[in-house]
C-alpha cells in the first residue's frame, strides 16, 4: 500500500510540473471520495459485469498442463473481456470517476493500442471526447487498433518525438494535459506516473486477483503456488498479484520484455537492466544511461516496450515479495504459437511473455502444484507482426 505521499518504499511520489499539481490533487480527492461510495461502486460493477463481461473465466488449461508435464496450469482469461484485454477494467473505473468530476474529455497514451481502444470505447459509451496519443512507430505496428479507435470516435495523434513509442506517447499525453486541464482527464493506462495513478489503476485492476483468488479456492480448495503475469508498466501484473500479496506462499512472477536479450541494448527489461531514477512523475527503476538519459528500449511487444516499471512493482522487487524475470522476443513468439496450437487460445504477444515463463517453470514443479497465468489480452492484433517475425508477409 502506498503512504500518504504516494510512496511504495522509496518509489512513487509525484514528480510533475507545478501546472499539473492541482489536477492530481483534485483527482486524489475525488478518488478518495468515490472509491468507497456504494453508488459509484454499484455503477462500476454493473459496467464491468454487464458491459465488459466480467467476471473473466479462470480456465484449467488441461492440454497445456499435460504437454508441459508439471504443475497444473490455469489461465485467467482477461482476453475475453470486452475490447480484448484487461485495460477495460481500469478505463471504466477512471472514465466513470472523470465523469463524476465533471470532465468531458479523456486523453490517453497507448502502446499496443489496447489501452487506447479501451479508452475510446469508454468515451463512446459515456459520451466523452477522446484523444489518444500513440507512438508513430506503434501506429504502424498496430494499424488495426488505430482503425478501431477512430471507428469508436477517438482522435488518434501519432507521436513522432523521441523514439516514437510508448514512452513518447506518455510524454505527449502529459504535455497535452498541462495545456488543457479544466475539462480533461488523463486516463493513464498503467500503474505508473505520479501519485495517485499507481494506486487508482492498481485498485481498478485488482478485480483480476479478487476473482482469481475466489475462483481457484472454489475449483481447487487451495491457493496457487505461483501467479505469473507480463510486466511493462505493470497494470495487469499488479492486478493479478494484489489479492495474493499477503499470501506469502504464493510466488508472484512478473515477466519483463527482454527483447533480443538482457545482455543487448535491444531490451525493455527494466528491473533486470535498469536502475533507480525519476521519470514520468515517479521514482522507480528505469532503463537509462550513466547520465540519466532514458534509454531507447526495444521489444517485439509494443505494450511492454517501456523503459520503466510501476513503483509498486519496484517496491515488491526490493522487498523480495515478487520476482521479475526476463523473457525474450523469441521465447514469447514460441509461446504465442504454442498456446495457440495447444489450447486454441491466441494470446496477446504481451501475455505470451507470461506463458513463455510458465513453460519454463511448470516442468520444474510437481503435478499437485498450481500456476495461474494471466492472459492479459487476445492476440488478434499481433498476428501480422508475428507472421512478419517468422518471415511471412500477410495482408491484415
Amino acid at each position: 500500500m502506498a503512504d500518504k505521499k504516494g510512496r511504495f518504499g522509496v518509489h512513487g511520489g509525484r514528480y510533475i510540473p507545478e501546472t499539473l499539481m492541482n489536477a492530481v490533487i483534485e483527482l486524489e480527492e475525488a478518488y478518495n471520495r468515490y472509491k468507497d461510495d456504494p453508488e459509484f461502486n454499484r455503477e462500476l460493477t454493473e459496467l464491468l459485469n454487464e458491459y465488459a463481461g466480467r467476471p473473466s473465466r479462470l480456465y484449467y488449461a488441461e492440454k497445456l498442463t499435460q504437454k508441459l508435464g508439471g504443475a497444473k496450469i490455469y489461465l485467467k482469461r482477461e482476453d475475453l473481456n470486452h475490447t480484448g484485454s484487461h485495460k477495460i477494467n481500469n478505463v471504466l473505473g477512471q472514465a466513470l470517476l472523470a465523469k463524476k468530476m465533471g470532465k468531458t474529455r479523456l486523453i490517453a497514451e497507448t502502446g499496443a493500442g489496447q489501452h487506447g481502444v479501451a479508452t475510446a470505447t469508454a468515451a463512446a459509451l459515456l459520451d466523452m471526447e477522446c484523444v489518444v496519443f500513440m507512438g508513430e512507430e506503434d501506429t504502424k505496428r498496430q494499424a488495426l487498433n488505430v482503425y478501431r479507435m477512430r471507428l469508436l470516435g477517438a482522435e488518434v495523434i501519432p507521436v513522432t518525438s523521441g523514439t516514437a513509442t510508448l514512452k513518447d506517447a506518455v510524454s505527449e499525453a502529459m504535455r497535452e494535459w498541462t495545456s488543457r486541464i479544466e475539462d480533461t482527464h488523463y486516463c493513464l493506462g498503467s500503474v505508473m506516473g505520479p501519485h495517485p495513478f499507481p494506486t487508482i489503476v492498481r485498485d481498478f485492476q485488482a478485480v483480476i486477483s479478487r476473482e482469481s483468488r475466489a475462483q481457484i479456492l472454489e475449483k481447487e480448495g487451495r491457493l496457487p503456488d505461483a501467479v505469473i503475469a507480463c510486466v511493462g508498466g505493470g497494470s495487469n501484473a499488479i492486478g493479478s498479484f494484489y489479492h495474493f500479496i499477503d499470501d506469502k506462499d504464493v510466488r508472484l512472477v512478473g515477466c519483463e520484455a527482454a527483447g533480443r536479450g538482457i545482455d543487448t541494448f535491444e531490451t525493455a527489461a527494466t528491473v533486470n537492466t535498469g536502475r533507480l531514477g525519476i521519470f514520468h512523475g515517479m521514482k522507480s527503476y528505469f532503463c537509462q544511461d550513466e547520465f540519466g538519459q532514458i534509454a531507447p528500449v526495444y521489444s517485439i511487444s509494443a505494450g511492454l516496450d517501456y523503459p520503466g516499471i510501476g513503483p509498486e512493482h519496484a517496491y515488491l522487487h526490493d522487498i523480495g515479495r515478487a520476482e521479475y524475470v526476463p523473457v525474450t522476443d523469441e521465447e514469447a513468439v514460441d509461446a504465442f504459437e504454442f498456446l495457440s496450437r495447444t489450447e486454441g487460445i491466441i494470446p496477446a504477444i504481451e501475455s505470451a511473455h507470461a506463458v513463455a515463463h510458465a513453460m519454463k517453470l511448470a516442468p520444474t514443479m510437481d503435478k499437485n502444484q498450481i500456476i495461474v497465468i494471466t492472459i492479459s489480452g487476445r492476440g488478434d492484433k499481433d498476428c501480422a507482426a508475428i507472421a512478419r517475425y517468422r518471415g511471412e508477409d500477410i495482408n491484415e
Partner: protein
Amino acid sequence: MNKSANERINEAFINGKAFIPFFTCGDPSLEATGKLVRAAVENGADLIELGIPFSDPTAEGPVIQGANLRALQGGVTTDKIFDFVRDLRKDVKIPLVFMTYANVVFSYGAEKFIRTCKEIGIDGLILPDLPFEEKEEFAPICKEFDVALVSLIAPTSEHRIAMIAKEAEGFLYIVSSLGVTGTRSEITTDLDSIVKVVRENTDIPCAIGFGISTPEQAKKMSKLADGVIVGSAIMKIIGEYGEDSVSYVADYVKSMKQGVKKAIS
C-alpha cells in the same frame, strides 16, 4: 565575495528589470553555446539559464525538445557541461542557473551534482518536474552547498502560490500560460493577481517565462514582474542558423533587453 546564492541572483534584478535568456547547452555545439552566452551577456542579459539536455523533456514544446535531442546526439553529457561552465566562468560574471530534469541530477548523484554546481559557479537550479511537495529530494543538499533551488508557479497554482512563495529561493519562475514551453501570440493568464500574492509572501524577485518572444511582450511582462525568461524564441533562431546564429541571437537579445528596459520608462 562570499555572497549567498540568493544575493548573487538578486544582483541580476537590481539594475532595472532582468532579461533572462535560456540556452540548451550543446545545441549545436558547446563551442557555439559559449559564443552565444557571451554574446547575450554583451547585449544586456542579466542572468543566464543553461539547459542540460534530457532525453524526454516533458515540460518542453517542440522547439526545445528539438534542441535537447540535437545536443544529445552531438554527444553532450553532464560532465562535458560542467567543464564548459568552468571555462565560461573565467570571464562570465553574471548569475548562471541550470535548468534540467530531476533524473539528470538524481542519476548523477544529487550530492555530487550539486557540489559540482557550487564548485564551478552555478548559482541556482531549476527542475520543472520537481514540485513543492517533492523538493525535499534536493533542497537540503542545495542548502548545504548554497545553490538556490528555484521554484515555479503556474497559472493553475491558485492557493498553492503563497506556500511556494514563502519558501522560495533565488528567484521565482512564474509560468505565464498553461502547456509546455514555446512561443505564444497571446498570454491571457491573470499574472497581476499571481504576482500580488507572491509579493505578499516573499521578497525574492520573480520572473515570468513561457511563451514570450517579442520585445512588446517582454515590455508588458516585465511591467508585471522583475524580469522575463525567454527560451524557445532563442532556440528557434539557433535551430535555424546553427553555428552561424551568434549575430542573430546577439541582435535578438539586444532588442528584448530594450523591450524590458521600456517597462520602467
